[in-house]
C-alpha cells in the first residue's frame, strides 16, 4: 500500500539543505491523488450549478421575475357626487397611501413601521392577519392619507437595507362636505368588511376594496366605484423604477348627478343646526328629493379612511343616534300632520261631507274613555276646514270612529304609508299603518274600536318616516299622484307614482283647510306664512308616551313631544313639499319656520333664475323667518370641502 504520509522509498538519499534536491518523483502518487481531489472539487461545484440551473431553474427564474417586476395598484378615483345644477358635493383629493408588500416583510420591522406611521401596532398585526389568505404578492394598504412627516419617514426608510416592504401609491381619497352637510344622504365609503364580503351585495368585491357603506355611496357604489388598474414596473435593488412593462389604466368611477339642490340643502342644514330631527323637501310632481337633512349627524370624513375603533364606539353609544338617517329611518307618530289624510279619507269614503260639524268642548268620550283635544277650552263648532285649520282632535276622533280603522288604513296605504317609498337609499324603514289585519297578523288579537280614536289623530300604533309623510302630503297636493321619491337626477325618469282614484273636489277641500292653517287667523301654522306665496301646510305635535311602540325605546329619557310641520307651495300648482321633524320641539308651530325657510329659498332661487315667470306671483320676500337669531350668511359652497391646494397630505399635518 502506498503510504500517504511518509516517503519511505527514498529515505536513503537525503541531500541535506539543498534547494536542488532532484527527487521530484517522490510525491508522484500524492500528486495523482491531488488530481482526483481536484476533479472531485470541480464535480462538486458543477453539481451545484446543475442543481440550480438545470433542475430548479424555473423556481429561480420566477424568483428573479418577482425581484424585478413589481405590480402596483392604480386606484380608480370614485365618481364625484354633484347636485342638480352640477355643483360638486363630494369630490376626491390626491393623497398618498402606504402599501406593504408581504413578499419581503419582516415581522420585526412592523413595530418600527407602525411607530413611524402613527399606527397602532396591534391593529396592524390584526390587519395583516386578515389578509393572510390573499396571495403574498398582492400588496395591502396599511395607511391612507400620509402626512408630510409620514411621507418623509417612508421616503427615508424604504431602501432595501431598512424597510423595503414599504411602498407608496397615489390614491384619491373622498372629500366630504364640512359640518356633516348632507352626511346621511351621501353616506360614506370604507373598506369592505369581512362580514360584508359574505353577503350577496358585496360578494363581487375583494378584501381591501373601498366601497360605499351608507347612503348614496352605497346605493350607487357600482357607478361611483370604477375599476382599479395596475402598473407593472421593473425595479432595481433599491426599489427604483427602471422601466414600465405594462399598464392597465384605472377606469374612474362615473359622476352622479343628484336631485338635491345645494342651496335648499344648505338652508335646511342651517335651520336644523343644533337640533334633533329631520327635514326633507320633495318636488311632488316628480318625486325628486331637493333636500334632506337628518340631525344629529356624523362627520363622514372620519369614515373616509379607516375609522378608529374608539371613535366608532363613541358614535354608536351616542344616545342621540347620529348614525340614524331620520328622514328614512325614524318611525314616529305623525300626530296631527296625519289629519289632512284623515280628512281626505273621510270625504272619499263619504263618511262626512265638508259641512259636517262636530261640537268640540275640549274633549270627548269614546268607548268609555275620555279623549282630550289639545285645545283645553275646545274649538266650539268645527267643520272640516276649521278642523284642519285649528287641528281639532275631537272632530277627527269623531270622523275616525265613524269611518273605521280599515278605511283609514286603506287611504294611508294609498298615500304610501306603511311601506317603503322605494327611495334609492339603503335601509329605508317601512313605518306602521295599523289595521284589523295588521293587528291579527302581528298580535293575534282583534282590533278594538277604541284604538281607532288615537290613530285618527296620528297617534297610536301609526308610525311614519318624514319621507313617507312628505310623499303622502305631496301626493294630495298634486291631486292624488304619489310619486316615488328618488335622488338620482334623471330627466327621463318616468312617472312612477301611485295614482289613487281620488276626487279632485275632495282634494281641493282638504287643501283649502291646509291653506287656512298657514294663512288665516287662528291657523296653527301661521309661522310658515310667506307673504305673497300660497303656502299650505299642517302642524303636528306627536306624543311619544302615547305611542306604545316607542314607549320601550324611549324609556328613561325626558320625553318631549315631537314637532312636525308639513307644507307645500304654491297651492294651485305645487312644486315643493317640505316636511320638518323637530324632535322634542314640543309643538308643530316650531317646526313651521323651518319648512317656510326651505320653501322660501326655493322660490327665491326661482325668482333669481327665471324672474319673468314668477314676478307676478311673488312680489317681494322678507327675511327668513326662522324665529331664531339668523346664522351668519353662508352660501352652500361654504359647506363643500375645498381640495387642498398643495399636496393633500401636507395641509393635514395636525393630529
Amino acid at each position: 500500500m502506498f503510504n500517504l504520509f511518509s516517503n519511505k522509498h527514498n529515505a536513503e538519499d537525503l541531500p541535506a539543505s539543498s534547494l536542488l534536491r532532484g527527487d521530484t518523483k517522490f510525491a508522484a502518487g500524492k500528486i495523482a491523488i491531488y488530481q482526483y481531489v481536484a476533479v472531485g472539487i470541480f464535480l462538486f461545484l458543477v453539481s451545484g450549478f446543475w442543481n440550480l440551473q438545470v433542475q430548479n431553474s424555473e423556481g429561480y427564474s420566477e424568483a428573479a421575475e418577482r425581484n424585478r417586476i413589481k405590480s402596483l395598484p392604480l386606484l380608480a378615483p370614485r365618481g364625484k357626487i354633484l347636485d342638480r345644477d352640477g355643483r360638486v358635493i363630494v369630490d376626491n383629493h390626491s393623497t398618498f397611501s402606504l402599501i406593504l408588500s408581504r413578499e419581503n416583510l419582516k415581522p420585526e420591522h412592523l413595530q418600527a413601521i407602525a411607530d413611524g406611521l402613527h399606527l397602532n401596532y396591534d391593529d396592524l398585526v390584526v390587519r395583516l392577519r386578515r389578509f393572510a389568505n390573499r396571495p403574498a404578492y398582492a400588496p395591502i394598504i396599511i395607511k391612507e392619507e400620509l402626512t408630510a412627516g409620514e411621507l418623509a419617514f417612508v421616503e427615508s426608510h424604504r431602501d432595501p437595507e431598512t424597510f423595503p416592504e414599504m411602498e407608496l401609491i397615489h390614491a384619491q381619497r373622498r372629500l366630504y362636505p364640512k359640518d356633516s352637510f348632507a352626511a346621511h344622504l351621501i353616506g360614506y365609503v370604507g373598506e369592505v368588511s369581512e362580514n360584508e364580503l359574505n353577503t350577496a351585495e358585496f360578494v363581487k368585491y375583494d378584501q381591501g376594496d373601498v366601497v360605499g357603506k351608507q347612503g348614496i355611496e352605497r346605493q350607487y357604489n357600482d357607478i361611483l366605484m370604477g375599476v382599479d388598474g395596475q402598473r407593472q414596473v421593473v425595479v432595481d435593488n433599491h426599489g427604483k423604477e427602471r422601466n414600465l412593462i405594462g399598464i392597465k389604466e384605472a377606469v374612474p368611477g362615473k359622476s352622479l348627478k343628484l336631485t338635491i339642490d345645494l342651496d335648499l340643502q344648505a338652508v335646511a342644514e342651517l335651520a336644523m343646526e343644533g337640533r334633533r330631527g329631520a327635514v326633507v323637501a320633495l318636488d311632488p310632481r316628480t318625486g325628486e328629493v331637493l333636500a334632506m337633512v337628518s340631525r344629529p349627524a356624523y362627520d363622514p370624513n372620519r369614515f373616509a379612511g379607516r375609522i378608529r375603533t374608539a371613535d366608532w364606539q363613541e358614535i354608536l353609544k351616542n344616545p342621540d343616534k347620529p348614525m340614524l338617517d331620520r328622514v328614512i329611518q325614524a318611525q314616529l307618530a305623525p300626530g296631527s300632520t296625519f289629519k289632512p289624510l284623515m280628512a281626505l279619507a273621510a270625504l272619499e269614503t263619504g263618511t262626512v261631507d265638508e259641512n259636517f260639524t262636530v261640537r268640540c268642548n275640549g274633549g270627548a268620550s269614546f268607548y268609555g274613555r275620555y279623549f282630550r283635544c289639545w285645545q283645553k277650552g275646545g274649538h266650539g263648532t268645527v267643520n272640516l276646514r276649521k278642523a284642519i285649520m285649528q287641528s281639532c282632535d275631537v272632530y277627527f276622533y269623531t270622523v275616525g270612529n265613524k269611518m273605521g280603522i280599515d278605511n283609514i288604513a286603506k287611504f294611508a296605504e294609498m298615500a304610501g304609508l306603511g311601506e317603503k317609498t322605494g327611495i334609492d337609499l339603503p335601509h329605508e324603514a317601512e313605518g306602521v299603518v295599523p289595521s284589523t289585519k295588521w293587528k291579527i297578523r302581528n298580535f293575534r288579537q282583534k282590533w278594538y274600536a277604541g284604538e281607532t280614536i288615537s290613530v285618527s289623530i296620528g297617534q297610536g300604533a301609526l308610525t311614519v318616516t318624514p319621507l313617507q309623510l312628505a310623499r303622502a302630503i305631496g301626493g294630495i297636493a298634486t291631486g292624488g299622484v304619489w310619486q316615488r321619491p328618488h335622488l338620482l337626477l334623471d330627466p327621463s325618469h318616468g312617472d312612477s307614482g301611485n295614482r289613487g282614484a281620488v276626487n279632485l273636489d275632495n282634494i281641493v277641500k282638504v287643501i283649502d283647510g291646509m291653506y287656512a292653517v298657514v294663512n288665516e287667523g287662528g291657523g296653527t301654522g301661521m309661522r310658515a306664512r310667506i307673504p305673497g306665496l300660497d303656502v299650505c301646510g299642517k302642524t303636528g305635535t306627536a306624543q311619544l308616551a302615547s305611542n306604545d311602540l316607542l314607549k320601550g325605546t324611549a324609556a328613561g329619557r325626558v320625553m318631549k313631544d315631537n314637532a312636525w310641520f308639513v307644507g307645500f307651495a304654491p297651492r294651485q300648482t305645487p312644486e315643493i313639499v317640505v316636511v320638518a321633524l323637530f324632535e322634542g320641539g314640543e309643538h308643530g308651530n316650531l317646526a313651521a319656520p323651518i319648512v317656510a325657510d326651505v320653501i322660501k329659498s326655493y322660490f327665491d332661487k326661482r325668482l333669481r333664475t327665471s324672474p319673468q315667470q314668477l314676478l307676478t306671483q311673488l312680489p317681494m320676500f322678507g327675511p327668513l323667518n326662522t324665529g331664531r337669531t339668523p346664522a351668519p350668511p353662508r352660501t352652500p359652497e361654504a359647506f363643500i370641502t375645498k381640495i387642498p391646494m398643495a399636496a393633500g397630505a401636507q395641509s393635514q399635518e395636525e393630529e
Partner: protein
Amino acid sequence: MTGYRSIRDLDWPLLLVALSISALGVLQIYSATHETIWKDAWWKQIIWIAAGLLLMWVVTNIDYHTLLGQVYLMYGLSIVTLIAVFLIGTKVFGSRRWIPVGGGFRLQVSEFVKLVIILLVARFMTELKRDDLDWRDLLKIGGLVGLPMLLVMKQPDLGTALTYLPVLAVGILLAGLRWQYLAVLGVVLALTLPVGWHFLQDYQKARLTTFIDPAKDPRGQGYQVIQSKIAVGAGGMWGKGVTRGTQTQLQFLPVPHTDFIFSAFSEEHGFVGVVVVLGLYFLLLMQIVQNAQTAPDRAGMYICMGVCTLLLFHVLVNVGMVVGRMPVTGIPLPLMSAGGSHILSVFLMLGLVNNVRLRRFVN
C-alpha cells in the same frame, strides 16, 4: 545560465487558458457594470492584466532558486508591510487592507504575501533534513505561516488569511507527515474551533450562521447568498445573454463584478457557460500540476503545487459561495474578479510556475 530560456519555452497552453479566463472576466465586468458607477472597471482590468503579464515575465526571468534564497528577507518585508498597513493603510468597508502606492492606486498587501508564503513553504519543505516532519518542524512552519495569517485576520480579512492555510497544508502533506501527527492535529483543530469562534468578528460569525441557513437573514448576509442563487438559477441552461441578466443589471446581485462575478456570469451565460469556464479553470490547474510533475527539483514542485492549491482554494470557496455551498468570505475568483492586487498576484504566481518550467530543461 541564460541559454536555455526562450519565449518559445513558456507554458503557452497555461497562458492561453489564463488569458481566456481573463478575457471572459473583462467581458463580464463590462456587462455587470456598464450602467453603474464602476463602469470604468473593465478597461482598468485590462490594464491590470497587461501589468500582470509584464510582472509575470519579470518573475519568470529571475531563477526561482534566487527567489528562494531571498525568501526570509521577503518574509521579513511582508511582516513589516502588514504591520505598516495598520498604521498607514486605507480603510474600506470597515477593514484596513490596502496601502496607497501613489497615483491614486493602492495595493492589498495580503495578496502579495501569498507569493511569499508559497516560496516560504517550498523552501522550508525542501530543506527538511528528514523524510517527514516532526513536531519541531510543524511548530516552526506553523508559526511562520501563522504570524502573517494572524496579521491579515486582524485587518480583518478572514478570507484572505484562510487562503494561506491550504498552501501550508499541501506542503506538509506532500513532504510527508506521520499519520499519528495528523490525527493529533485533527483533534487539536477540532478542540480549538469552538474557542476560535469567540475570536471571530460578529460579521464573520454571521456569515457562518447564514451559510448554514440563508433564509434566516434574507436581507443581511443571507440576502447575498439568496440573490446569488436566484441569479445562478435564473440563468438556466443557456443563460440570459450578455447585459441581459436582470439580477445583475438591476443590482440585486451584490458586487457583481468582484466577489460575485461568477454569479453574474452564470446568470448571463447559463449552465453551458459555467461548464466551459470551470473546464478552463480545471485545465489551468492541471497544467500547473503537470508543471509540478515535471519540475526539475523538489523546490519547483512545491512552488507549483502551492500555486495550484491556492488557486484551487480560491475557485472552490468563491464558486462554492456563489451556489450557496460555501460561506460568504469575500475572496476573489482568480483572473475573473475585478481588482488590481489580485490580478497582479495571480499573474505573479503564473510567473513562478513558468519560472519552474523554464528551469527544467537544465536537468
